[in-house]
C-alpha cells in the first residue's frame, strides 16, 4: 500500500470535464513525474462537488485548499510552488462557501459515487438526436485522430495494449479479433454491431443505443479503418423501437455531415453503415446466427471454425462486436491505452455496465470498474435489499449465467472469477433476489426461456432444455423424485458438453449453479414437498384456522374463484380443489385466521 503525503483531487464531473479538467489532470501527472514527486503525490479524479461555475477545480488534501479556474499554463507553477516548495498559490485559490442547504451531492450518493463512466459518459447530458452535442463533448475527435494520424496497425495495437475484451459475454480480446481479421486478404470486409440484447432483464445496450448512438458509430468507423472494412451493419432487435429510431437519426446526421459514407472528414476513407432489424429470437445474438440473419436466412448457429474473423458475412472476413465494446473504442483512441489500463484488474481492464434489477433499492444502470466486489455493487451502489429482507442470491449473465449466493458476495467482478464460481459475466444483467425468491422457480423460469429460444438444431440443447424444464416443473409441483437431481445434473452437463453454440453450451448453467449453491431448496421441494420461499403454489395450501375465524366473510368476498364456504359468524372453509392459491383471502383476513401451510401438514377435517 503506497502512502502518499498529498492527494490532488481533480474534479471530473460534467462541468469541469467540459472545461478541460482531464487535460489538467494529465498535465499535473506529467509535471509531478518530471519533478520526481510521483511517489509522494497522487492525482485522483473525483465527482462533481458542486462548485461548477469555478471549474476546473483541484483540491489539495490534506491541506484542504481549493484551486479554481485552472488553466494548463498554471500547472508547472502550481506544482513547483505548492507541492515542491510548500507555498500555496494564493492567486489560484478559492474559499468554498459555507454549506447553507443540506442537499445531497451526487458525488456522495452511493448509487453514483462508485461509478466510473466511460461508455456512459454522455448519459443525461446530451440530446442524442443532436450530433453537435455529441461533438461538443469531444465526439468524433478520436475518429479524426484515427483516420488522419494513425495506421491500421497502430489502431489495432492501441486496442490490444488497452486490454479491451468483448463486452458481449465471452470476453474475447478485441485487439486479437481485429488483428486476425486485419490480416485476412479477402475483400470486402465487414463490421457488425451486435445489438440483439436478448437476456431478460438486461438493457445496457438499449441504453447506449438510445442515449449515445454516435459513440457506437464512431467506434465502428475507427474499427473499419483498423481492419480495412468498407461496410458495416448495426443489428438492433426490433423490440427496441426507440433505439432503432435514434440510431437511424444518428446515421442520417453523420452522413449529412460527412462523418460517414464516402471520404469521411476529407481523409479519403470510405465506410457506410446500415441498420438491420432483428426478428425476435434470442439465439440471433449468437454471432453465426446473427450473420445468418443479416444474410436473410433463418437464425441458426453453425460450426466454428471457420470463425467470422476469417469467414463471416457472405463468406468474407467479418468483425462482430457488442454495442458496449464499440462504444468503448473511441475513448481508448482519444485518451490512450495507458489511461484505459488504469482501471480494472490485471486480466479485465476498464469498466463494465451492469443493469441492476430485481429486489434492490436502486434499480438502474451502473458502470463500475472491473474488480469491484459484488458486495459493493449490491449494498453500495444498489443500496441494499428493500423492505428489510435478506439477500439470497444474485443472478449474473442472464440465462447463460448463474446464481451466486451470499457467501460469494466478496467475489470481485471480472471474467475469470465469475466463470470459476460457475456463473458468467455475460452481457451484464444482474438480478438481485431476496429470501422470498424460490431458486427452483428461478431455474424453471430460465429453462422455460431457453426451451423456447433454443434454435432446435442440436438434440442436446433442444431436448435437453425441454427435459430439464419438465423435471424442474415437476419438482415445483410436488412431483419430484429423489433420482431427479442426479438426472438433472447429468442432462445439464451433457447439454453443456455436446451442444454446438453458446446457447446450448450454457443452457445447463441455471441448473448447475442452483444445484451447487442451493441444493437444500431442491431437496426441500422433493423430500419434504415444501417450498421454503413460499413461492411454488402447488406446495402450499391456504387453510382457515378454526380457532381464530370470526366468520366475518371478508375472505369469501375477496376470493376470485368462489372457493370459500361459510355463513356469517360461522367458521369458514376453503375448498382445496377449487382453490387457485392466489392468497387474496389471507390478505383480506384481519384476524390472521388464514394460514399458508405445507401440503403434508394438513389435517383432514
Amino acid at each position: 500500500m503506497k502512502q502518499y503525503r498529498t492527494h490532488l483531487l481533480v474534479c471530473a464531473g460534467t462541468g469541469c470535464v467540459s472545461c478541460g479538467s482531464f487535460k489538467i489532470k494529465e498535465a499535473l501527472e506529467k509535471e509531478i513525474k518530471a519533478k520526481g514527486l510521483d511517489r509522494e503525490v497522487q492525482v485522483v479524479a473525483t465527482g462533481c462537488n458542486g462548485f461548477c461555475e469555478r471549474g476546473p477545480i483541484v483540491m489539495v488534501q490534506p491541506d484542504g485548499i481549493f484551486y479554481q479556474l485552472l488553466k494548463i499554463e498554471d500547472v508547472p507553477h502550481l506544482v513547483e510552488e505548492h507541492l515542491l516548495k510548500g507555498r500555496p498559490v494564493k492567486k489560484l485559490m478559492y474559499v468554498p462557501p459555507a454549506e447553507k442547504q443540506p442537499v445531497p451531492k451526487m458525488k456522495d450518493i452511493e448509487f453514483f459515487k462508485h461509478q466510473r463512466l466511460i461508455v456512459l459518459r454522455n448519459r443525461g447530458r446530451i440530446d442524442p438526436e443532436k450530433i453537435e452535442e455529441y461533438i461538443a463533448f469531444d465526439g468524433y475527435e478520436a475518429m479524426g485522430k484515427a483516420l488522419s494520424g494513425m495506421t491500421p496497425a497502430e489502431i489495432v495495437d492501441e486496442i490490444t495494449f488497452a486490454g479491451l475484451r468483448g463486452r458481449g459475454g465471452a470476453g474475447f480480446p478485441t485487439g486479437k479479433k481485429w488483428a486476425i481479421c486485419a490480416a485476412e486478404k479477402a475483400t470486402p470486409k465487414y463490421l457488425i454491431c451486435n445489438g440483439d440484447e436478448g437476456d431478460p432483464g438486461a438493457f445496457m445496450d438499449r441504453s447506449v443505443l438510445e442515449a449515445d448512438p454516435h459513440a457506437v458509430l464512431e467506434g465502428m468507423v475507427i474499427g473499419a479503418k483498423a481492419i480495412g472494412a468498407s461496410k458495416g451493419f448495426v443489428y438492433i432487435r426490433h423490440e427496441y423501437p426507440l433505439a432503432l429510431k435514434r440510431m437511424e437519426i444518428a446515421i442520417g446526421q453523420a452522413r449529412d455531415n460527412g462523418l460517414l459514407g464516402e471520404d469521411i472528414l476529407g481523409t479519403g476513407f470510405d465506410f457506410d453503415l446500415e441498420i438491420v432489424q432483428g426478428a425476435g429470437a434470442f439465439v440471433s445474438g449468437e454471432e453465426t446466427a446473427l450473420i445468418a440473419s443479416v444474410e436473410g436466412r433463418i437464425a441458426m448457429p453453425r460450426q466454428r471454425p471457420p470463425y467470422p474473423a476469417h469467414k463471416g458475412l457472405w463468406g468474407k472476413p467479418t468483425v462482430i462486436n457488442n454495442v458496449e465494446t464499440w462504444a468503448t473504442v473511441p475513448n481508448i483512441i482519444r485518451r490512450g491505452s495507458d489511461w484505459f489500463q488504469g482501471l480494472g484488474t490485471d486480466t479485465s481492464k476498464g469498466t463494465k455496465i451492469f443493469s441492476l434489477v430485481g429486489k434492490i433499492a436502486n434499480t438502474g444502470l451502473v458502470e463500475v470498474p472491473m474488480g469491484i466486489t459484488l458486495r459493493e455493487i449490491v449494498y453500495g451502489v444498489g443500496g441494499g435489499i428493500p423492505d428489510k429482507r435478506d439477500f439470497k442470491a444474485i443472478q449474473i449473465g442472464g440465462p447463460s449465467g448463474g446464481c451466486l449466493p451470499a457467501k460469494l458476495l466478496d467475489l470481485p467482478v471480472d471474467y475469470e472469477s465469475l466463470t470459476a464460481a460457475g456463473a458468467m459475466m455475460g452481457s451484464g444483467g444482474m438480478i438481485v433476489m431476496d429470501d422470498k425468491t424460490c431458486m427452483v422457480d428461478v431455474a424453471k423460469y430460465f429453462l422455460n426461456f431457453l426451451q423456447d429460444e433454443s434454435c432446435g438444431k442440436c438434440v442436446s440443447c433442444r431436448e435437453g432444455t425441454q427435459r430439464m424444464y419438465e423435471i424442474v416443473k415437476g419438482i415445483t409441483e410436488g412431483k419430484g423424485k429423489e433420482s431427479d437431481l442426479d438426472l438433472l445434473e447429468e442432462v445439464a452437463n451433457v447439454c453443456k458438453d455436446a451442444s454446438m453454440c453458446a446457447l446450448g453450451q450454457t443452457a445447463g448453467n441455471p441448473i448447475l449453479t442452483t444445484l451447487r449453491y442451493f441444493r437444500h431448496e431442491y431437496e426441500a421441494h422433493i423430500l419434504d414437498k415444501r417450498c421454503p420461499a413460499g413461492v411454488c403454489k402447488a406446495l402450499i395450501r391456504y387453510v382457515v384456522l378454526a380457532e381464530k375465524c370470526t366468520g366475518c366473510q371478508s375472505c369469501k368476498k375477496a376470493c376470485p374463484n368462489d372457493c370459500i364456504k361459510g355463513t356469517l359468524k360461522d367458521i369458514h372453509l376453503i375448498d382445496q380443489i377449487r382453490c387457485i392459491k392466489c392468497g387474496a383471502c389471507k390478505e383480506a383476513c384481519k384476524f390472521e385466521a388464514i394460514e399458508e401451510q405445507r401440503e403434508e401438514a394438513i389435517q383432514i377435517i
Partner: protein
Amino acid sequence: MITFRMNGLEVQAEEGSTILDTAKFYGLAIPTLCHHEGLTEFGGCRLCVVEIGEGLRSKLVSSCTYPVEPGLVVRTDSARVWKSRRMMIELMLAMAPGSKVLQDLASKYGVTKVRFAPRDGQCVLCGLCTRICAEQMDAQAIGFQQRGHKRKISTPFDMRSEVCRLCGACMYVCPACQLRCQGPRAETALCNACLAMAPSCLEHYDDLQCWMYDAGRCGTCVQDKKS
C-alpha cells in the same frame, strides 16, 4: 495434406475434409444419424461428437462439421464422448421410441434405460428429409418450422405442397421410418431385446437361419425379455 492426431495415431487428411471423413477413411467407427454422404452436413443429432484439444481446453465437437486443422488432437471414444452419445440416444428414444435405427443404437451403445417420459412421436428432427428434398430432389417442399420446443418439419404454412412430386425420398432417408424391427414388440420405450440374443437355430443347424433377413425375424432367438 493436413497432419493431426486421432486416438493417438498420426493421421493425414486433405484440406477441407472433416474429422468424420478422416475417421471413416482410417476405419474408426463414429456413430451418426443426421449425416448422409450425399447431403450437406447438419450437425444436429450430436451423436458423432468427438473430444478435441487437451486438458482444460478440451471440448466436444460434432466430427461431421469440424474441418481438419494441423495439430488437432482428437479422441473418438473418450468417457466424455460416450456419456454424451448415450444421453443423445436416450433423448432421441424418448422422442421416437418406434425407430429401429435408434433402438439398434441403444443396444449397440449400452443404453438400457430411458429416464424421460416417452412421447410417442415419429420424428427426431434430424433434418435429413428436408435436406434430401432440397439438395437431391430440388423440390424444397418441406422445411423446419418454429424453434425450440415448438420445432417441427412441415410444408410452408402446413398447406398441401404444389412442388412435392411424391418421390418418397424423405421416407427413404428417415431413420424413424426405416424398416421396423421384426422381432417381438417391446412393451416399454426401450427394447434392447437384441442385447440378449441367443440364436436357438444354431443348436440345430450349422448356419444362422436368418442370414438373408433381419436378425430376429423368426422371433425364436430372443430368449430373455428385458426385465
